[in-house]
Structure formats: C-alpha cells, structure tokens
C-alpha cells in the first residue's frame, strides 16, 4: 500500500469519532497494540528525547525498505508512535523522504505537532527521515 493510501485509511478510521475522548481512547488502544520492542535496543543510541515521554526508535533496512520498531513509556505517545510506524514502516528511503505527511492534522492531532508539546512526535518524524536519508546515501555509494 502506498504511503498516502495508509494515511487516507487512518483518516477514515478517525472520522467515526465524534469527540476528543474517543480519539484518545483509540490512540491508547493503538498504543497497547504496539508490537513488543526488542529490549536490547533500549539504548541511548536509539532514544529520542522528548521533554516528558521517552521514545526509542529502531530501524532495520532490508530489500530496499526500512522497517521501524519503537517503544515509549507513555501510552498516548505509544499510540502516536504506532500510527507513525504504520505510515512510514515498509517503505523505501525515497518514499519516506518524498512523503507529505498530512494525516496528523486531519485526524485532529495537530496540537501534537507543536514543538512546545514536546511529546517527541516531531523529533520522531525527523529521526525517521534521517534514517531514510542515511540508508539512501548508503545505497547510492
């Protein structure tokens, strides 16, 4: 599935919710469903320091696509992480770097994009793109 198709799918899923509570309940549910993270990757190397919640992001590169796994100590952040992984994971570096990420705003989580929110969402996306860039330049060498 293309990256944009996934984004559209997420937007559709969130469209059924009428209020904030339901949206956050769903995020929490997504957070719970995040696949277990390899504990050996819980190292400073993979840590993305947000102000209030910590996120570990681990990339794997195989057959031209990047697979991300991640973990956070806060449940809502885990939910957001789960969404990001769903969108970015399994795509080529070029797809990731060329992606226009519009779903966050569309599902009413725009506040989480503010740098003052400090939940690491922005940092997480930036880190995913950095990994993509790194693998791309490796590929080209």
């Amino acid at each position, binding site marked *: 599935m293309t990256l944009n198709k996934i984004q559209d799918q997420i937007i559709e899923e969130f469209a059924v919710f009428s209020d904030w509570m339901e949206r956050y309940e769903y995020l*929490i549910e997504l957070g719970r469903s995040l696949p277990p993270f390899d504990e050996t990757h819980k190292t400073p190397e993979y840590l993305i320091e947000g102000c209030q*919640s910590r996120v570990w992001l681990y990339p794997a590169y195989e057959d031209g696509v990047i697979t991300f796994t991640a973990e956070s100590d806060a*449940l809502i952040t885990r939910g957001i992480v789960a969404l990001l992984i769903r969108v970015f994971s399994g795509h080529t570096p070029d797809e990731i770097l060329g992606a226009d990420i519009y779903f966050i705003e569309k599902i009413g989580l725009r506040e989480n994009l503010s740098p003052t929110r400090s939940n690491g969402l922005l940092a997480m996306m930036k880190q995913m793109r950095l990994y993509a860039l790194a693998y791309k330049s490796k590929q080209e060498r």
Partner: protein
Amino acid sequence: MCLVRHTMQLNDIMKLSKSIEEIRSDFPILSTKAYGKPLVYLDNGATTQKPEQVIRVINELYRTTNANVHRGVHYLSDRVSERYEAARETVRAFINAQKKEEIIFTAGTTASINAVAFSFGERFVGKDDEIIISGMEHHANIVPWQMLCQRKSARLKVIPFSDDGILDLESFRGMLTGRTRIVAVAHASNVLGTVNPVREIVREAHSHGIPVLVDGAQAIQHGIVDVTDIGCDFYVFSGHKVYGPNGIGVLYGKEELLNEMPPYQGGGDMVASVTFEKTTYNDLPFRFEAGTTNFTGAIGMAAALDYLSALGRQAVAEREQALLARATAGLSSVGGLRIYGTAPDKVSVISFLIGGLHPYDTGMILDKMGIAVRTGTHCAQPLMERYGITGNIRASIAFYNTDEEIDALVSGVRKTVEMLA
C-alpha cells in the same frame, strides 16, 4: 499554614470581601470553554489569571498615561513616574519592607535571583567559598548559583529533605561554616507545596553572619508575607504568579547590602554621571534598574496586589487551604495514587502520580476534559531524582477555584485511571 498564621494581623478579616461568583466574574478567562467543556484552571503555580482590575489598569495606562518614567519634564512623564513610584510603595507595604528604596523592579523571580547571584557574588563570593541551597529548589534557584560557583570556584551545598518534603534543619545547621557566603531557599516548594521555616533558617544563618535569599515565587500569592518578620536579606517574586502581568518581578533587598553590591546591568537611569573615563552610579533603587523599566508591568502588578489586599489576604489563604484539603482527601481516595509532599504546612499545591501511569498520559486526558494541570518535572529535576521519578502531575489551586472544580479534578483522575489502567 505558618506562612499566614505567625504574621496574622487583627485587622485582617477572615471572610473574603466578595462572593465566589463575584470573584470569578472578575476573571474573564475563567469562563473559557476548553474543547467545549468549562475550563478548570488548576495550573496556578505556573501562572495565575488576571482580574479585570489589572487588565483595566494596563489598558488605561496605554490609553492615557504612557510616557517614559523618570526622564521627562513633561506632564505625562511626571504622571507615569508618580504611579510607578506609587507601585513601589504598594509592593513595599504588601511585603512589609522598611523602605521603598529596598524594592527593585526586575523582570521576574528568575531575573531577581540572577541579579543577586551576579551582583552579590561579585562582591562577596570568592574561591572555595560556599553557597547553600535546598534540595527542593526550582531550577531558577539552582542554576544562577551554579553559574556563580563556576565563575568563582566556589562550592554549592544542598540541604536534604525527608520523604514528606520537610527540610532537614539539623543537616542545614551542620552545613553553616566560616566559608558560607549566602543561603538561598524557597519560601514554598513549587512541587511539594511545603512552606519552609524561613524565619528559623534566617535566624540560624544570621547567627553566623550569613545573609539569606528567600524565593517567594510560590508563597507571595498564598497569604501574608512579611519580610521584616522573616528577617531575610533578599526576597524575590514574580508579578504573574500573584495575579499581575508577566515580565515584571520584585527583588527586595536590605538597603545596607544592596548599597554594598555593584550594579549588574549598565545603562540609562542607573547612573549619576557618565563620562568616557568614569561613571558614577545612581542611588537605590535606580542603581539596579538600568534602562527603561517595565513600568506598565509594575503598575499592573500593584493593581493585582491591591486586588488581593481588598479581598483579604488571610481569607484568600484560608479558602485555598480548604480547597487543598478537599483535593487532598479526594485524590487520596483514588487507588494507587501517591501524593508528593505531605508536610503539615503547605501552600495549595498538590503533586501526584497514579500507580505506573505516565504523568504525560494523565495530563493529556485531563486536558481533554477541560482540566488544566501541569505535568513533567516542573523545573525541579533534582527533586524528581530525589524521589526516583521522571515527573509527576501538579494541580495548583487559587482562591477563585471552586469545590466543584476540585471534584471535577478528582473524578477526572478516576476516569483517566479507567482509560489508562
């Protein structure tokens, strides 16, 4: 609460001069809807809301009385200078300082502490000297002293505190040596709410000839602060935490000490004469107020202090204590909830964690219910480390909060637990 009790005055009536409905209508922002729900503002420790009486004064100043202070011979400048100096007198009376010259306007608590750390430090602190702070300080009362220690190769010593959040005065006494140059402690902790025994701390320090700075950022708004009674050498606070505008604060300092200290900022208004060879400095308090001061802020802050005085500061404190007791009882009934800071003497601040729930999750969900609390380390990372946590949730209560709002917090927390646990 000692903060109030030991300085209680007979003419301070115990009843608020207005009903809670009248009080709430003084604060326009309190009728805000957050996500369609009535806003429950419990982040007063971060900043307080402003009454009409303050907003009106600031608005009116810009409309009718705007000119630079102390500089013009003209009508407007005279009028605004007069009001600026009247604001200084209001602050003096509010904290019961002896002289108006001892009140210096700064940008806030942080600016005040930095001013003392720099200026006092320049004059009195040298190699191997010691500075004492407490383990429950806000970063604003840690970092300026660390920077001073670095500049002067001095040492920072930290008073420990108990699990309840009470300073260990025994250790403190043992720390005072011939090398101690200053003690800097919070009047009330921004996380634990503990009201520290500042009078006793001052007495101990003074018996060794050591001056004391009291950080009043979390105390000034909760009752009666009397610097003469406390006996401290410096007392600092921010306007925005006491229902005034932001960007304005106070540095109270004893005249004889301030006179010994070099200015920390150079510029206009702080000088007596300037030539390229030599500059002589102005007298107190102007020596420490370089450049165009925040006179609208100062006059706005004075309006806020007047508002509190008219309401009855003792009554304000008592109402907040009642709300704190209600919050403490309500939150304590939530399974797995731990309150950080259980000293008998507290301002209306209550910090907590629920079981293994992340404070960020709790805060986010409370926010969606329209309840504003603060989550994280509250700029007191060493305190968090002391408890072995990475952060917690803080509800900080003001006199304009209601029983219903406290109950909304408690039921909100319960709902959060249902969602997250």
